């Protein structure tokens, strides 16, 4: 056992760091930059039953210490993900967290069932929180009953653990967290992006083609930390924490606040090597301080798991 390995349902991680969904594609590009075996896990880009082109451009905009994106769940669709993307990981031991999305419950069931059957996925992550597609997803993330029902139905067709990725665009995130816990979720991912907008002063209109986009990056970290802290005290589920992580200190903050693992999103765009660098820095830092295991940095009362 190392200082940094952790075991989450379906994800046996050599360190607590994974790229966040949508910020690493399907590993193709960054896999050329470093050995993906160095990662704790990998969250894949959202997969939907059919291929999606996503929204028109511009799809990104910059804000103070953050960015807005409205990619719109662009992905090659379930079939191509299985045939063209997953084989890339055949020689890689790092567990995969497959992010799945859709417009109807049936969409989620279809993708969940097919992906879990491939035997190549460690766990599923239900994206019920994408603010960038009008038709759905987000409704499941804001209504506890719908979230619970979706969780139940996906659990029923999956033979691997199911994480639910929560939306921060809600009045009380603990209500959704508890609802999906009762419905049988194996873990939680939080937070997804906050719904935001930037104006284009030249046109007087929103800058993004989709008008609204998801806010990510350092700007949202205090909101992520607050939500993780709240959820940690209300559920027993393991938490994959994310939102603005880009430094070693950020990772420690998330672990202290109650996350069991940490996902890194936007920071990959500024530094494609960031996940690798952070995992090395984390191990070295604990070694230097002679801390036996990462979780020992938590104050006792947070150490629920």
């Amino acid at each position: 056992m190392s200082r940094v390995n952790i075991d989450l349902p379906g994800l046996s991680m050599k360190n607590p760091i994974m790229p966040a969904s949508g910020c690493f594609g399907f590993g193709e590009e960054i896999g050329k930059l470093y050995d993906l075996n160095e990662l704790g896990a990998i969250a894949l880009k959202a997969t939907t039953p059919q291929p999606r082109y996503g929204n028109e451009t511009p799809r990104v905009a910059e804000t103070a210490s953050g960015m807005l994106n409205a990619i719109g769940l662009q992905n090659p669709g379930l079939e191509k993900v299985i045939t063209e993307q997953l084989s890339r990981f055949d020689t890689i031991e790092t567990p995969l967290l497959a992010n799945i999305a859709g417009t109807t419950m049936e969409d989620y069931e279809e993708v969940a069932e097919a992906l879990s059957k491939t035997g190549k996925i460690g766990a599923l992550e239900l994206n019920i929180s994408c603010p960038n597609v009008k038709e759905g997803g987000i409704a499941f993330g804001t209504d506890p009953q719908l979230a619970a029902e979706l969780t139940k139905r996906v659990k029923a067709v999956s033979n691997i653990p199911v994480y639910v990725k929560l939306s921060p665009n809600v009045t009380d995130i603990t209500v959704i967290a508890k609802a999906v816990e009762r419905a049988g979720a194996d873990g939680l991912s939080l937070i997804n992006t906050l719904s935001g907008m930037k104006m284009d002063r030249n046109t007087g209109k929103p800058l993004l083609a989709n008008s609204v986009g998801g806010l990510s990056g350092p700007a949202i970290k205090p909101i992520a930390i607050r939500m993780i802290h709240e959820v940690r005290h209300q559920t027993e589920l393991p938490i994959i924490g994310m939102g603005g992580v880009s430094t070693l200190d950020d990772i420690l903050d998330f672990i202290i606040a109650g996350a069991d693992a940490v996902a890194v999103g936007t920071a990959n765009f500024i530094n494609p090597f960031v996940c690798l660098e952070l995992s090395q820095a984390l191990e070295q830092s604990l070694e230097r301080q002679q801390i036996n295991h990462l979780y020992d940095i938590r104050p006792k009362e947070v150490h629920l798991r």
Partner: protein
Amino acid sequence: MKKEDMIVRDNREIAQDIYEMVLEGNLVGEVERPGEFLHINTSRHSVPLLRRPISICNTDKQKRQLTILYRAEGQGTRLLSTYSTNDTVDVLGPLGNGFPVGDVSSGETVLLVGGGIGVPPLYDLATVLREQGATVITVLGFSNKNVVFYENHFQKLGDVYVSTIDGSFGYSGFVTDVIDQKKLSFDRLFACGPVPMLRALEDKYPNVKGSLSLEERMGCGIGVCLACVCHTQNDPDGSDYRKVCSDGPVFPWGEVVL
């Protein structure tokens, strides 16, 4: 592709708000073709957060140096303009595919058309084409006299026609007006500049051999985030696409929707 703290060797204003920056580092050794770009982190903190894509204008592999030209306009590029000699800049690159110079045979006449801050990559391109024995004709369009740059540099490599929209320098009007007026003929066309210019060229020469370089707002610059996609022209179900950062920024004439 490298992520490197490159050393600033020079950074000066060469036209109104237009800066020429010389950067030194090992990354220069990896530049393969004109039209590749750098993704530059203009700050060490989170404002601005995202990198800025800037074309490579010229490389000197022996000196391990390259030149970029940029317009100091928004937050990031204005910050870049404050860098001094010997400062370091966090650069990711080289990125993108570049112009297909290998397709050009010796003796061909190549027309290069650049608009505004789309001009820089054409300089490296003109240099390489000349080295390959091609004849280079360059048409450069700017909005006005104050923002004209590098016309002398191009003059050393072939005929150059400069136009300004307000007529304050060179020919008056758009680059397409100059091409018409001068009845320029050529075997191949490479272009980089604002989309309306590219569109006018495509409309004018639907079947020419050539390539164009596109701009799009980017996240990662390496093909991961899907921020920079564009549609392809021949795409019945609308799900086909290209990423400007990694499939482009240079695309074959007529491949993508402008």
